[in-house]
């Protein structure tokens, strides 16, 4: 059912978006690419509507339903676009399936297998750690409260949340899996957009190659079928860059404005989405100064204003809540109320394994991304490294494609300076894939041997990507096909030990799952649960009451430096109405010396607070559940008075 709801909502997005896109930006609905703009428009506008409803305290089914009715009415008005939309999409499939030679058809088959495997994976209950840590956890809290509240104990409590609002929209209309499935649709839209854009700029053969280059990205299987926001960010970024490129090349200010609107959307999805608009507008500005485009400075200024304006709601929220529009980043530039020396030092430690920022590392980074993925926390795969230098040697006359490359390189510099996480390159990879496709097709058409090598490189990597995808998704198959319950799914989910990848040792993904269920049965009806841990928190998503994180290393909403005695602990917990506290600290009555918190003098004052907290748990709370290292304590109110 949730699949049908998500598909229907997508269709409604396209129809209503076509109306808007054609009126505002004169987009031709018969152009296959305008479908993605239409979908993207309504995706983001719906997200902003849900945000507004959430701020107003109406984040509930009624609001979602009312918005759906509005969209349906708009879709009826835009229904006359239907024929053109269908024809344009049909032409994509026709081109995709047209005889391109058996080698390319084999590649296409590999791509279809990939998408279908991920489709099945997208039907399962959510299982991604990030989704549990904040995407769905915070969203769950908002939906439960019926408003967008601020949970200051969450590190990402004030960051942009556009994609999650759409998941929320779908959750309200169907269920959790609907919220996940719409993000899978975003991924498929991204693939289709890459194909359409590459086909428009070059030909169908290049489009297949561009798609293969993109889908060979090895970290994609880990997010394509999850309730994450990377997929939609990549789609929106691609559409933004494409509009910017057309505006730049044709000196068309309408396209520049369209690009700026989508860049604003991108920044509303994730903080680093800001880099897309910044890179593109910088290139355009330089191009204007050098006389490469006839765009007026006024149009560029409007683009900057619109970009910032459209992104601003989430950043204004963050500013009003924390004093820092970019919380928890750029804390040096703003007075962030939820940032302190412990967090700053923890952040330094977190970034320690990252590569240094210097020219040598910058030059080495493309190689490290392929051969030393641990350095950048994501495996990007070798195709970009094989194709990009080759593509650079080929002169490409298409200025749109060249725009993708230049903005991509600028974004890459931005990425290297500030992000250095391989996954955060995704917004530019679709454009770079389109850039690489042309030269690869030229080599492909060069002769039998060349054709074989290009095919082999792509095919082997698509095969690897398919293997990774299958490995990622196949665990979900039993629960999707009904041979396993959701409970069994989470309980039995096994994964290679993340800390020892090469060992091949399988460990439970959520060892705290059963414990969480027991806590739920006892804490039923309780308002809030606190989660205490020295280092990383347990996966708290499975806890049903509202969660507050009590992590001395992670945030200072509960400032462990300021805890002087157990009464401070008691009053802090009371402030959040926390009745139960779960920990993974076993019987520790003080923080052990091998814990990160105890290892650095910079953590000393937080360590003292953490020890007082442990003392409080063991001496002034009731131990209710003890399982392995997991404990659940119940707070006894009023027993900590000094008298």
């Amino acid at each position: 059912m949730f699949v049908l709801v998500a598909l229907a909502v997508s269709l409604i997005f396209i129809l209503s978006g076509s109306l808007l896109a054609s009126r505002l930006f004169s987009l031709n609905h018969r152009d296959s690419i305008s479908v993605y703009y239409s979908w993207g428009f309504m995706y983001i506008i719906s997200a902003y509507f849900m945000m507004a409803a959430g701020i107003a305290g109406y984040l509930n089914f009624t609001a979602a339903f009312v918005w759906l009715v509005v969209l349906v009415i708009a879709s009826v008005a835009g229904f006359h676009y239907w024929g053109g939309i269908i024809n344009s999409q049909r032409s994509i499939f026709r081109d995709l399936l047209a005889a391109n030679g058996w080698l390319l058809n084999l590649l296409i088959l590999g791509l279809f297998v990939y998408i279908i495997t991920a489709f099945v994976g997208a039907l399962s209950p959510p299982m991604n750690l990030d989704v549990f840590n904040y995407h769905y956890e915070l969203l769950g809290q908002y939906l439960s409260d019926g408003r967008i509240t601020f949970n200051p104990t969450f590190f990402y409590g004030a960051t942009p949340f556009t994609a999650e609002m759409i998941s929320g929209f779908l959750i309200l209309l169907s269920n959790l899996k609907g919220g996940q499935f719409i993000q899978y649709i975003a991924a498929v839209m991204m693939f289709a957009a890459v194909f359409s854009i590459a086909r428009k700029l070059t030909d169908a053969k290049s489009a297949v190659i561009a798609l293969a280059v993109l889908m060979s990205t090895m970290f994609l299987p880990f997010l394509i079928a999850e309730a994450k926001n990377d997929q939609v960010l990549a789609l929106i970024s691609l559409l933004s860059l494409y509009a910017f490129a057309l505006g730049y090349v044709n000196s068309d200010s309408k396209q520049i404005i369209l690009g700026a609107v989508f860049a604003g959307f991108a920044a509303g999805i994730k903080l680093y989405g800001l880099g897309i608009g910044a890179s593109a507008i910088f290139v355009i500005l330089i191009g204007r100064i050098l006389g490469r485009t006839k765009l007026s400075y006024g149009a560029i200024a409007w683009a900057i204003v619109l970009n910032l304006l459209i992104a601003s709601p989430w950043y204004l929220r963050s500013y009003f809540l924390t004093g820092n529009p970019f919380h928890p980043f750029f804390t040096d530039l703003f007075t962030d109320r939820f940032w302190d020396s412990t967090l700053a030092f923890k952040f330094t430690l977190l970034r320690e394994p990252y590569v240094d920022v210097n020219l040598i590392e910058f030059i080495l980074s493309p190689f490290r991304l392929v051969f030393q993925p641990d350095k950048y926390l994501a495996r990007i795969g070798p195709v970009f490294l094989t194709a990009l230098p080759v593509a650079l040697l080929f002169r490409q006359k298409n200025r749109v494609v060249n725009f993708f490359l230049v903005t991509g390189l600028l974004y890459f510099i931005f990425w290297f300076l500030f992000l250095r996480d391989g996954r955060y390159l995704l917004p530019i990879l679709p454009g770079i894939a389109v850039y690489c496709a042309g030269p690869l097709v030229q080599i492909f058409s060069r002769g039998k041997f060349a054709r074989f090598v290009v095919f082999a490189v792509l095919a082997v990597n698509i095969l690897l990507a398919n293997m990774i995808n299958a490995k990622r998704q196949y665990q979900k198959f039993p629960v999707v096909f009904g041979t396993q319950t959701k409970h069994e799914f989470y309980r039995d989910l096994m994964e290679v030990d993340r800390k020892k990848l090469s060992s091949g040792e399988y460990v439970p993904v959520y060892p705290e799952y059963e414990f969480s269920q027991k806590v739920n049965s006892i804490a039923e009806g309780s308002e809030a649960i606190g989660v205490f841990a020295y280092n990383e928190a347990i996966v708290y998503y499975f806890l049903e009451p509202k969660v507050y994180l009590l992590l001395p290393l992670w945030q200072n909403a509960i400032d462990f430096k300021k805890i002087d005695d157990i009464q401070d602990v008691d009053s802090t917990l009371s402030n959040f109405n926390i009745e139960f506290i779960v920990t993974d600290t076993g019987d520790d009555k003080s923080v052990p010396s091998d814990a990160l918190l105890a290892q650095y003098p910079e953590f000393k004052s937080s360590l003292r607070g953490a020890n007082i907290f442990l003392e409080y748990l063991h001496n002034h709370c009731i131990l209710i559940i003890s399982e392995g290292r997991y404990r659940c304590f119940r707070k006894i109110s009023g027993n900590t008075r000094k008298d």
Partner: protein
Amino acid sequence: MTEISASLIVITYNQLEHLMKLIESISKQSMGHKFETVIVDDCSSDGTGEYLDNIETEADLIIIHNNHNAGRASSRNTGAKAASGNLLIFVDGDLALDDYFIERHISFHSENPDMTAVGKVNYPDDTAAGKYLGNRSMFQLKRPSRIPFRYFISGNFSIPAELYNELGGFDEDYAFYGGEDLDLGYRLAEEGIDIYYIPQAVAFHVHPIELHELLSKRYEFGLKGLALFAAKHPKTAEHVPIYRLFSRPLTHFILRFITIPLFYKPLEYIAGMTGILSGRVYDYLVFGAVFKGLLDSAEDNFAGTNERAGRSIAGVSIGWMAIISILYIFDFFGERYKTALTVLKDMLN
């Protein structure tokens, strides 16, 4: 030898301001020799036609108006047909002549009746590009010297009319900027006619040359003139250094690499803005511009005139792709072989 009667042939297109200076300089020529001036207006739209129709000068002028923009090669041929002199001296419309210009050309031919002479063009040195042009190749020579055909330029040269007509003049297939002089130079060399550089026959470029103008002309030369020349005379084109580098696999590959925009563009901008870079940088930029023109002249990065080079590019590309992929596969499975075994075991169980 019969007495030399010279015809100065000027072609002009939308250069009225410069043309006025040229005509002024023509009227100041030392009067040792009689000469006529043929001006071919290649369908200018800046008032050149009206100016020429109403010009008052003592010079012996023949004015020709093309009814369409026919290009440099065709216009020169038109001028040559209208000329009555037995020595044809060709100059571009944006040059002004030294007072002894005609005299120097005539005196050279009176001593060397069967040769062709290329005169000097002085570029204003108030721009870096002007300085660069003024000091390159044969312009550094102080004495008359024989030069290879590839140095033959048509902005300032003289040739006996009979020889010109025997050769059929300029090849009118070159209907765009550049290449027609290279082609004529080649045909002169084929006929065994010596080409001499005479530094005393000086013409002055009347407007400053900016870098972007120089590079865009060089690009156009690569794109059309040199590409057509290479198509017409593939073996001879190898004598043109840039084409030789373009057509040989290794140098082609190196040039491709060193002229990628990542390296080329910043230097172009810095050179354009500061004008303080050395002549070597300008050589690189000019070579790069012609090279890009040659690349763009091909349908794709392989087709056209650079077949051998295309093969090398394909070879290097394929080699790179194969090596990286093989390394990756070893790396991938090397790291994950235990995982793969476990997965396999799980599946079998």
